C-alpha cells in the first residue's frame, strides 16, 4: 500500500576543535522540513548557541516560531531540561516541532556520553558482557528501575551491591 505520510528524523554530533559539541537534528516529513543546530560547551553542557530553519511548512506563519529557539540558549543540559524546553519553545504558545528537534539534540548529547560506558560493557564473551553491565550498574545506581533490564528483580542485579 502507498504511504499516506512519511517521516525521517535524524540527528548527529561532531566534536569541535575546542572540545565543544556541534549537534544537528533534522525532521523531514510529508509536510514539514526543519533543522535545529546547537553548540554545547563541555564539560558544563551549556547550550552556547542555537540556530534553526524551517524549509517547508504547511503554513507560512510557522516561520514566526524561529525566534523562539533562542529561549534555549544558555540552558544547561541536565535534570529537568526536557520540561524546560517543552514549556519555553513548545506547546500551544510555541512550536512543538522545533521543541522536539531541540530535545532530539539533547538526547544525542546524552547518548554520545553514554556510548563510552556502553562500549566498555561490550565483549564477545557473554560472561564478560554481563560482568561489564553489572559494573556499569554498580557505578550508576540511577539506572536502577529505569527499564526491564535494570528492574529490581532483574537477573542482572542478583547479588549486586550498589554504590550508595
Amino acid at each position, binding site marked *: *500500500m*502507498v*504511504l*499516506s*505520510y*512519511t*517521516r*525521517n*528524523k*535524524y*540527528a*548527529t*554530533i*561532531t*566534536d*569541535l576543535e575546542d572540545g565543544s*559539541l*556541534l549537534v544537528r537534528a533534522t525532521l523531514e*516529513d*510529508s*509536510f514539514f522540513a526543519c533543522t535545529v543546530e546547537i553548540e554545547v560547551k563541555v564539560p558544563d553542557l551549556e547550550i552556547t548557541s542555537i540556530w534553526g530553519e524551517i524549509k517547508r511548512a*504547511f*503554513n507560512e*506563519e*510557522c516561520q*514566526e*516560531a524561529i525566534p523562539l529557539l533562542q529561549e534555549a540558549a544558555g540552558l544547561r543540559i541536565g535534570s529537568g531540561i526536557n520540561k524546560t524546553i517543552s514549556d519555553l519553545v513548545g*506547546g*500551544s*504558545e*510555541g*512550536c*512543538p*516541532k522545533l521543541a522536539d528537534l531541540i530535545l*532530539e539534540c539533547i*538526547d*544525542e548529547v546524552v*547518548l*554520545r556520553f*553514554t*556510548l563510552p560506558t*556502553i562500549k566498555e*560493557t*561490550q565483549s564477545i564473551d*557473554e560472561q564478560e*558482557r*554481563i560482568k561489564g*553491565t553489572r559494573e556499569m550498574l554498580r557505578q550508576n545506581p540511577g539506572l536502577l*528501575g*529505569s*527499564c*526491564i*533490564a535494570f*528492574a529490581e528483580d*532483574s*537477573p*542482572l542485579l542478583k547479588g549486586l551491591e550498589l554504590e550508595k
Partner: protein
Amino acid sequence: MSTLTFARSKIVGIECPDENTFLAHGILDDYIYALELDVEVKLPDFELSSVQGRWKRYTTPECPKAIAKLQNAVGLRIPEKDFARKIRRVVGKEGCTHFANLLLECCDGIMQAAAYGGWKDLEEKKAAPEKEGYLKRKFESVPGLEDSCMVYARMGK
C-alpha cells in the same frame, strides 16, 4: 574535518488501509540500538489496537524481555491526557525507553497523517480548499490539533 561521534535515525511510514485505521511502521537506528515497531491505531478514538516490535541491536541479555511490555500500550488512546507520560512509564520504564521513544514517534506520525493526509489527496485532484478552512474543519476531527501550536491556537480563536 570532524567525524561523527554519534548519530541516530528514526523513520516512520504511515498507511491508511481504510478510513478508520492507521498503520505505522517505525525504525530507530543509532550507534547503540536498532529496533522496529508496527503499530495499528483505530478511529474514532485513536486507540492503539496492536503494537508489535523487534530488536536488531541491544545491550544486555534482558533487553528482549521488553518486547512483551509493548502490549501495555494496547488500549491506550493517543489524544488522552498524559498519553506520552503513560507510554514512557508502561512501555519505557517497565520495558525499554528506546521502544517508548519510537512508539511515541509512530503515534505522533499518525496524528500528523490524520491532520494533513487528506490534503495531499485533495492537492492531487486539484480540489484543495483554502488551507485555513481545511484546518479548522480538521480541528473538529483531530483531537489536540487546535491547541497544538501558536499558529493553530491563534487560528482557532
